[in-house]
């Protein structure tokens, strides 16, 4: 028994180890969620009027809604949808951010000016208003949401990457490499990319929460996914109509699950940042 406690304490004291363990744990939860999303039977999504408005019990641990659909199934499906949209959005936005950030820092001059102006422009409009506008342009529906969250989340990260590259370009070892005759592409692949890749990875994961919350918000106000999709935003906007009836679980549980997932991405992102950049840990 004693040895177990000692190892437990050693693990907690070793920040490096807790970081790696947290990362593994987060990834396991996400993997579990995806597997659950694939394997969970569609039966729960069917209407079953005999089992309407059941509060959470052993059979339906998250209860059922006013059409007798199992809330657990709907929530798992909804979270998986958020995961998918988040993945597309984070992937595309990070790609745009890295490309523009790199171009801005490497080419400078007019290119830099135009890219900074674009970042300014994107930040001059409230994000949600921008999403409504894009969603309207796409004619609403899933397409609008995906395009919207995918093309609007890059400015902050592009700024970070631009600053990072600019700073790197001024370091002595890169200037020496350049003076020693290394080509631009050589500097880029050997010296810049190893620094940018962690930024890229962390930036991408920390984009997830924003993308997921914006997707849910847009679906909630009715500009997003179609009402038949099992998405958290849709579930919550439907439950708005049933607030006065006292079916609290329709509103509380889906939101809590969404919060849980967003928080998990935050934790994952921060731990990966600590993992790739252990210097921060000492501070």
């Amino acid at each position: 028994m004693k040895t177990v406690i000692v190892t437990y304490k050693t693990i907690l004291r070793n920040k490096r180890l807790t970081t790696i363990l947290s990362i593994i744990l987060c990834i396991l939860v996400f993997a579990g969620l995806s597997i659950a999303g694939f394997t969970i039977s569609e039966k729960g999504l069917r209407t079953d009027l005999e089992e309407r408005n059941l509060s959470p019990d052993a059979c339906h641990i998250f209860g059922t809604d006013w059409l007798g659909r199992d809330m657990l199934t709907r929530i798992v499906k909804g979270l998986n949808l958020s995961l998918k949209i988040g993945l597309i959005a984070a992937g595309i936005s990070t790609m745009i951010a890295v490309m523009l950030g790199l171009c801005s820092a490497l080419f400078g001059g007019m290119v830099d000016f135009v890219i900074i102006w674009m970042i300014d422009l994107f930040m001059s409009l409230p994000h949600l208003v921008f999403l409504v506008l894009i969603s309207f342009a796409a004619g609403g529906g899933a397409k609008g949401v995906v395009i919207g969250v995918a093309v609007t989340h890059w400015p902050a990260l592009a700024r970070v990457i631009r600053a990072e590259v600019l700073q790197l370009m001024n370091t002595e070892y890169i200037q020496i490499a350049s003076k020693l005759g290394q080509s631009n592409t050589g500097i880029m692949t050997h010296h810049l990319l190893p620094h940018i890749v962690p930024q890229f990875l962390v930036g991408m994961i920390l984009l997830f929460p924003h993308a997921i919350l914006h997707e849910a918000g847009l679906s909630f106000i009715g500009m997003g996914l179609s009402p038949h999709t099992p998405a958290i935003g849709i579930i919550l906007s439907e439950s708005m109509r049933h607030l006065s009836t006292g079916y609290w679980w329709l509103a509380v549980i889906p939101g809590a699950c969404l919060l849980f997932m967003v928080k998990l991405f935050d934790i994952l992102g921060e731990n990966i940042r600590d993992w790739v950049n252990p210097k921060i840990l000492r501070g």
Partner: protein
Amino acid sequence: MIRQLLVKKVTHLASIVLSISVISFMLVSVSPIDPVRAYIGADMLAISRAQKEKIEERWGINEPMHVRYVKWFTELLHGNLGHSFIFNQKVTKVISTRFATSLWLMAAAWVISGMLGFVMGIVSGVMHGTFVDKLIRFYAYMLASTPTFWMGMLLLICFSMWLGWTPICCATPPGILLENVTFGQRIYHLILPAATLSIIGIANITLHTRQKLIDVLQSDFILFAISQGETIWGATRHHGIRNIILPAITIQFASFSELFGGSLLAETVFAYPGLGQATVLAGLKSDVPLLLGIVLFSVFFVFTGNTIADLIYTLVDPRIKAGAPK
């Protein structure tokens, strides 16, 4: 120097408004949503093809985009943003009345979240590393990930359904003319939406203030003050706060963008008839002139916040004034 700054700001605003107007006009133009169909709605079957064509001709829908844009922008320069069909009013009128309603909400949320967040940030910063600090940080990090609309729903369930302390919706009691609404009734209907936006808005300013204060408390002059017998709270009061209040105010003014976005969600939850709700309705019911008007207005709103933040820095902080190029 202030004049130079203002000239720069106004040029910047003009360039942003121009670009955003072009981009948003292009976006609404590529939308597959048929404006005539959106306007007529369910009666679409009742009108003939010829009638539809007549409306299209009158609205100039079949003209090329740039021609329509120039027409719209010329009208915009004359202060005419067009007619909103869902409210059957001029867009400028809709925006001004709706914004007046939203202003109550946004101002209340802005002030409350700013003050509470600042105080919590100071407490957390002074006591950093303690249990209180951990609690405040946990709260702030949790709130930063919470969907605004869900927070609104939770408050609604708790205070309006269970406790019955607050109203369920709207900005005024139903069935009372707007002129007869008392100040108290307004406040009463404002509590929950404002609380929703404040609770979410606190996170950012708290974390920021905390970090700034910790940085300041590690500087030499604080060490000197404490070595002369000053307590940590005293040092914070006399030396800390004056160093962190400016960045905090700046952060708060720079948060106008989130405030506006949050109002869209909070106003939807509480059916609060403000500009946020109008934005949602304009999007859902395809009221293009209103949507474009609100987009431009929100740009102006965000710009105002950022400019005030910049100006405060320049006016209040003598170091920036001294360092600025003449």
